[in-house]
């Protein structure tokens, strides 16, 4: 009898404990979902000339491969958009995210990650790849050759960076972006432009989205506790990115009397 009473007391204790911990958190968070639209019809994506590397040509023999710069579904959904709740509380993550070099392309070409995680860059091709961070802020400076299949470069993600641009110096069509943020509230839009972010703290939140070609957009939403909040973004096609795919713009001072400027690559 006393054993039964003890069990009931213990069960009640755990029930109360769980109400004080998980219960309130669940009830104070919600889900954000939505769709990224592109109203304009984009220009065709560039065709890749794999012949620049015979290994890439062999891997893709007989295929016409296009860069996936703008991926728009038939109903106007825009894929590969980084979506982030930028007003969310900060935290550190764990585990790893994979950037796979396969078929002389990045998979995926847009990645979302949390500070504290590790970026694993893997070469799945039997050809030389180079992974190069193009980061004007110099938070990430890796520039590493991966000559053979199976090689992995692990990069601890210590600092937030939206967006970290990576490229392969050997295959100029290989270019990717990694959104590194201080919280776990992010997503990448799928092939139909849809995204979902769960367990977002309830209340007013700022949602930022970013696309490689069309750049950033921002909205503020009121996240309903225990419910789902819909937020759609629409690009018209006239926007411009804040992060250039090319080298960063640098300020230079032109000496008086200079008529000609010569630009050269580093090392020249």
């Amino acid at each position, binding site marked *: 009898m006393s054993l039964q009473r003890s069990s009931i007391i213990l069960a009640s204790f755990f029930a109360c404990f769980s109400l004080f911990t998980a219960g309130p958190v669940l009830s104070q968070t919600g889900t954000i979902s939505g769709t990224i639209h592109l109203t304009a019809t984009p220009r065709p994506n560039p*065709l*890749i*000339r*794999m*012949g*620049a*590397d*015979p*290994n*890439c*040509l*062999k891997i*893709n*023999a*007989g*295929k*016409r*491969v296009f860069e996936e710069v703008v991926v728009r579904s038939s109903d106007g959904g825009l894929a590969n958009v980084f979506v982030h709740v930028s007003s969310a509380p900060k935290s550190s993550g764990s585990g790893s995210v994979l950037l796979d070099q396969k078929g002389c392309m990045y998979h995926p070409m847009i990645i979302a990650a949390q500070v504290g995680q590790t970026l694993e860059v893997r070469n799945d091709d*039997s*050809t*030389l*790849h*180079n992974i*190069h961070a193009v980061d004007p802020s110099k938070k990430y400076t890796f*520039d*590493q*050759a*991966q*000559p*053979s299949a199976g090689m992995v470069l692990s990069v601890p993600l210590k600092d937030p960076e939206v967006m970290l641009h990576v490229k392969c*110096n*050997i295959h100029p069509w290989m270019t990717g972006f990694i959104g590194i943020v201080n919280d776990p509230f992010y997503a990448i839009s799928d092939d139909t432009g849809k995204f979902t972010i769960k367990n977002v703290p309830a209340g007013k939140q700022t949602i930022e989205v970013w696309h490689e070609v069309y750049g950033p957009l921002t909205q503020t939403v009121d996240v309903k506790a225990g419910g789902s909040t819909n937020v759609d973004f629409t690009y018209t096609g006239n926007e411009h990115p804040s992060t250039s795919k090319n080298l960063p713009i640098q300020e230079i001072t032109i000496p008086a009397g200079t008529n000609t400027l010569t630009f050269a690559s580093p*090392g*020249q």
Partner: protein
Amino acid sequence: MVTKSNCREIILRKRWLTSVTSLVLLICVVSVLSQPAAVAAAGASPVPAKTSGFSALPQEAQASDPTTCKGILSQPAALKNALLGVPKYQSTYVIVLSGSAKDTITSPTPAALADLPIEIIDQPETNSIAEDLHLKNVQRVPASEASPAQPMVDVGSGKTQAAILWGPLAGAADIDLGLEDKISMFSIDRPKDPPAIYAGGGSTATPCAAAIADDLDSFGVLPAELLVPVNLRSMLNTPTPIFSMQNAEKGQVVFQQVCARCHGPYAVHDPALAPVDLLKSIRRFQFIGFKYIVMNGRSQKGMPPLRGTLTQDQIALIYQYLVARSKHLLTAGPK
């Protein structure tokens, strides 16, 4: 001529990487024995196509401009000039597919092509391919200056769903006829000589020729040389090029165009690029070893095979450039 004694000397003197030593051994054995039975591998390789059109290299790099190819099928002289200016695909023939054949045939295996109605130009080179592949349903159209790529016209109009043509001609026709999305294209069969009607005359790099090469690249067409293994036996007769600074300087241009992407503009070790210092490694190579690696690639180090991409002459020029650099006879960097 490589003899037994200098083979031994090479091997003993140079305590080198196992793979390269093995290569030298292989070359020595093949050379010394010099018997058909000893070159079974080479015997399995096809007889290489004559590549007489390549000797004028290196060419100046040309920007690709497909608009300069418009109307080229009706200009015989300009067409010939453009086609000969595509060295990478001179030995390559392609099969072009459209309609349901394009959708169903994703790899041109002999079984997939055996019964397919395929249109070819009635000329020895394509007839020979049809025989090699045991094609049963071949429709021949006469070679014609007025319509030099008639099978492509017929593919475009839907009259046929498959055609076999010389690669550069198919590329030029694709651009001129604007077929692009309607077709797929695969390299087919071993390296073969260009059609006789296009033989002779030097090659000239033109924006249209560059566009034709780009077009074939973009369809994933492999240079035919990549479809067959390196012909080791034919390499053994290659003389070491006689060094000249003029050739070394020409080699510098080719190096920057083709090799610098992976080896860097200065050909020295860079952790971000190919894991080899060419200026050091070139000292260990005789020309034949260098040529073998360039043609066959080094899969362990991520180097692609460049047979087809580079001509024999270009490989010799690059070798001279690297020798000159390693001996400090030539200044570093892009020219």
